């Protein structure tokens, strides 16, 4: 579904991605794990088109989308729940969600709103409140729900477990698995490597802008080098 080849991206003179290649297969959860500053967020920003790419290509369903605008990618079915949630703080929960459907027809918006509320019932309760007042976990659900409102074929999740209590982390990851069952392809970025690899079909380890390891989720979980460096085992 997604094929990234030799992708490079820089902040000024600092190269944050030094040639990243990876594939995301339809219907799978693909995890990207790696430490602080490895380039995970930069990679997702490039995939959404909000970060300039200096070399390499991104192909989505065989089509080269490297130069596409962010809104064209959303329309094509790539949605992102960004690092740090980035909800529209002054806007209500419902408005946040409806904006998620900005590139979709009005016809399906109410239906999709309903399914997001079914997935995260707390959002229905708080639908009229400004999203700035939600707890971290609720904002995370909102960010994921907002991304789902565009009916994505590929969902990019940047550290959905960051800063959440363990019980909420489980709830969010359960939701990711449920999404996969519902047919959404997921690219999941996590520092919480063991949790992410445990639910992933395929995984990549990224180190200072390069892919260091790749394989099935289970293989990576049992790879001694990965275990030592990222799982603290």
């Amino acid at each position, binding site marked *: 579904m997604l094929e990234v080849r030799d992708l490079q991206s820089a902040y000024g003179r600092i190269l944050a991605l030094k040639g990243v290649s990876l594939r995301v297969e339809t219907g799978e959860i693909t995890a990207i794990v790696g430490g602080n500053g490895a380039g995970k967020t930069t990679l997702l920003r490039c995939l959404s088109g909000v970060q300039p790419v200096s070399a390499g290509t991104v192909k989505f369903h065989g089509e080269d989308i490297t130069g596409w*605008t962010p809104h064209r990618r959303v329309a094509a079915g790539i949605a*992102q729940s960004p690092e740090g949630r980035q909800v*529209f*703080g002054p806007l209500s929960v419902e408005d946040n969600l409806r904006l998620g459907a*900005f590139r979709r027809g009005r016809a399906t918006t109410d239906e999709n709103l309903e399914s997001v509320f079914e997935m995260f019932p707390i959002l229905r309760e708080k639908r009229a409140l400004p999203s700035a007042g939600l707890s971290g976990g609720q904002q995370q659900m909102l960010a994921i729900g907002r*991304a789902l409102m565009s009916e994505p074929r590929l969902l990019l999740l940047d550290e959905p477990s960051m800063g959440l209590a363990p019980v909420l982390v489980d709830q969010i990851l359960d939701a990711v698995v449920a999404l996969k069952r519902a047919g959404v392809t997921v690219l999941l970025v996590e520092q919480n490597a063991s949790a992410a690899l445990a639910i992933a079909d395929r995984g990549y380890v990224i180190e200072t802008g390069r892919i260091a390891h790749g394989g099935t989720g289970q293989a990576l979980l049992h790879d001694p080098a990965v275990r030592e460096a990222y799982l603290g085992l």
Partner: protein
Amino acid sequence: MGAELLQFLVSGLTVGAVYALVALGFTLIYNASDVVNFAQGEFVMLGGMVTVFAVAAGLALPLAAALAILVAVAVGLLLHRLAIEPARGASAVTLIIITIGASIFLRGVAQIVFDKQFHQLPAFSGSDPILLAGAAILPQSFWVLGGAVLVFLGLFVFLEKTLLGKAVLATAANRLAARLVGVDTSFVLALSFGLSAAIGALAGILITPITLTSFDVGTMLALKGFAAAMLGGMGSPLGAVVGGLLLGLLESFAAGTISSAYKDAVAFVVILAVLFTMPQGLFGRRSVERV
């Protein structure tokens, strides 16, 4: 005394409504881009001047006014397209300097295309003052106030009730997230320039029968509108309206009770006072978030 107060009140609200409209223009563009558009006053100038010259050329007033708004919107869109968009990614200070340059350029062009004289428009519904509780009120004041109220309401409905309006608010709240949900933020900025230009031009058309216009009225109006936006809190549409009306009232009372020579100083005093005592203004973002 009561009649005098009422007189100050109405004239203060009338100029205040114009400042509020200019401040709203600042706010729309600032929210979409962090740019303070100092060419905002030139939209007001264009509104008045194009109407004056179109009427002189024989066009009926409503047509002349519509033409003036179209011209201002075209200039606003061109300003965005030719000066702001190519500099995308530059610092806010750079962009602000670009808008100052644009305002000097527009004033220069206006001086050539039009002239250096002062011009007036006939009041829309006569200039016989209406006596109200002993105060003499110009009918044009009601045009200004009514026009401002319509703009405020229209903008409110647009921002709060339409998905595109909410996309504008979302862009103001979090530009990255807006792009990630598929909002074309360049389009939102262009829209903001167009809307600001239309609002500014309308203000210029409505006020010209009272205050006259010339190629260089924009400078002072931009300053007043900026002071109003600062007072209300940069980025808050409600703040822009309240700040504009307050500034108008302050000026009117300062002119009436101290001396009209100090009228224009009020705006400077307000800017300095706001900067020193409450940089976030009355309805500024930070004070809202703290609640």
